[in-house]
């Protein structure tokens, strides 16, 4: 189940979308977040869907693969749909169930809002599927650099993010080891009441917690002896390379936005 989840996963590849500068991708997604609100009737929503389908193809992904990986999100989308179905009033009454009514505005609104939300989820998923977390971190750091002027520790936050990414697999391995060790001693956290399961988790988290402190201390020493002194005087090994195609991608996004704006009613 979890292994099928696509949210936040990265799938290496060489499509044009994979090759775009991560900054271009983040900026495009931000633009798209505004653009979805331009659509206000069938043609607009149709274009949004078409746009996302094209992007999916360009990224070398299949639609079925995307939908399978986003089943959990589907529940959220259905929930949104039904909320609007029941609570948005207006237009003709389609069904009158006595204590509730379903009216035409509700149906239309439900569909529109659900499409908007679905498109937003899809475009963010396409971005994370085609961009490594490390690239995303780099891009966020560069994009947010101006925030340093108002004392936001951009470099430190980015370093924290990349170190966290680096330690996730290490901690996962360790958790697995501890679980195995505790199981061998007869701990069970797969059966029993919720309370007893939670209690069985304690001997897993406490060792994990203690070892994380030790790791943090050793890592800090390792960083210090390798001359880490914060951002000042630092050079960067990884560089982002903004190319013509990145500008082109953003211009296309802007044109798409203008079209949606012009056909709105």
């Amino acid at each position, binding site marked *: 189940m979890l292994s099928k989840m696509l949210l936040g996963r990265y799938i290496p590849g060489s499509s044009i979308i994979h090759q775009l500068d991560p900054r271009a991708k983040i900026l495009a997604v931000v633009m798209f977040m505004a653009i979805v609100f331009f659509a206000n009737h069938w043609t607009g929503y149709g274009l949004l869907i078409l746009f996302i389908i094209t992007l999916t193809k360009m990224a070398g992904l299949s639609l079925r693969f995307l939908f399978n990986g986003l089943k959990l999100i589907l529940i959220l989308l259905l929930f949104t749909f039904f909320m609007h179905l029941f609570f948005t009033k207006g237009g003709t009454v389609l069904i009158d169930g006595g204590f509730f009514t379903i009216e035409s505005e509700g149906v239309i609104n439900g569909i529109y809002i659900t499409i908007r939300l679905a498109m937003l989820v899809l475009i963010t998923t396409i971005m994370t599927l085609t961009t490594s977390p490390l690239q995303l971190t780099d891009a966020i750091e560069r994009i947010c650099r101006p925030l340093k002027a108002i004392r936001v520790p951009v470099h430190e936050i980015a370093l924290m993010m990349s170190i966290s990414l680096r330690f996730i697999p290490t901690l996962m391995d360790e958790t697995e080891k501890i679980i195995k060790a505790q199981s061998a001693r007869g701990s069970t956290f797969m059966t029993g009441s919720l309370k007893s399961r939670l209690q069985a988790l304690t001997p897993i988290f406490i060792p994990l917690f203690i070892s994380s402190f030790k790791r943090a201390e050793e890592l800090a020493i390792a960083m210090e002896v390798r*001359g880490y002194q914060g951002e000042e005087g630092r050079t960067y*090994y*990884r560089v982002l390379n903004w190319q013509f195609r990145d500008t082109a991608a953003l211009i296309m996004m802007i044109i798409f936005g203008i079209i949606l704006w012009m056909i709105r009613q």
Partner: protein
Amino acid sequence: MIEFDNLAYSYRSGEYKALDHISLTIRQGDWVSIIGHNGSGKSTLVKILMGILEDYEGTIRVGGEVLNDENRAELRKRFAIVFQNPDNQFVGATVEDDVAFGLENNGVPREEMVRRTEAALEAVNMLSYRNHEPSRLSGGQKQRVAIASALAMAPDVLILDEATSMIDPEGRREVLDILQKIHGEGRTTLIYITHDLSEIEQSDHAVVMREGRIISKGTVEEIYQDTDALIASRLVLPFHMKVSKRLLGGEYMSYDELVKRL
């Protein structure tokens, strides 16, 4: 050249002296092993040298210059260290990022940084793994990357603090082979810390530590024959030396020589 003169140190919480008046000279280009049981003060010694611990008694001279608060940051650049746990010294999200980390900190220009990163990875035979994530490497590979990260800084002195104690015998072999190669080039001083007597064979000199003191020092031959010191420090002779002691009167010989003689 590094000279420790009457170096003493106690941790705030400790009743004992972690280091009890140690004097030791390490010559440039030598491979010096420091052997001792857990808690004998080996890590404390290097932590002081690296400037991680301060407030010690005695003096340290590096290339004749007395280590002090002003020159500590500058002198530290001459040392690089590889620690015991490969997982806790990996800063970069990929192999090459980790090797470049120290260079980034020192503001090395990017072209030079790429060149040095590649050369260092090449030296430890890990260049083809440059884009790998650390979690996908074996213990021996991780420590080789850690050595590359140290080498990229072009240190005068490379310190390994029990760098092989958490990895399998094969990884240990790989690490020792790389050190042999570095030592052969003759530029880098190696300080090799271990509690395993079978790992010191390739070093020029060895020092045995116990409870914060140096209880024996000399060539590997001399150490292997100093039975009293080895027993006192609860160190176990490597198997081939035990055989030699039993059968051939304890004369020092390497594993290969022993096989030949038998």
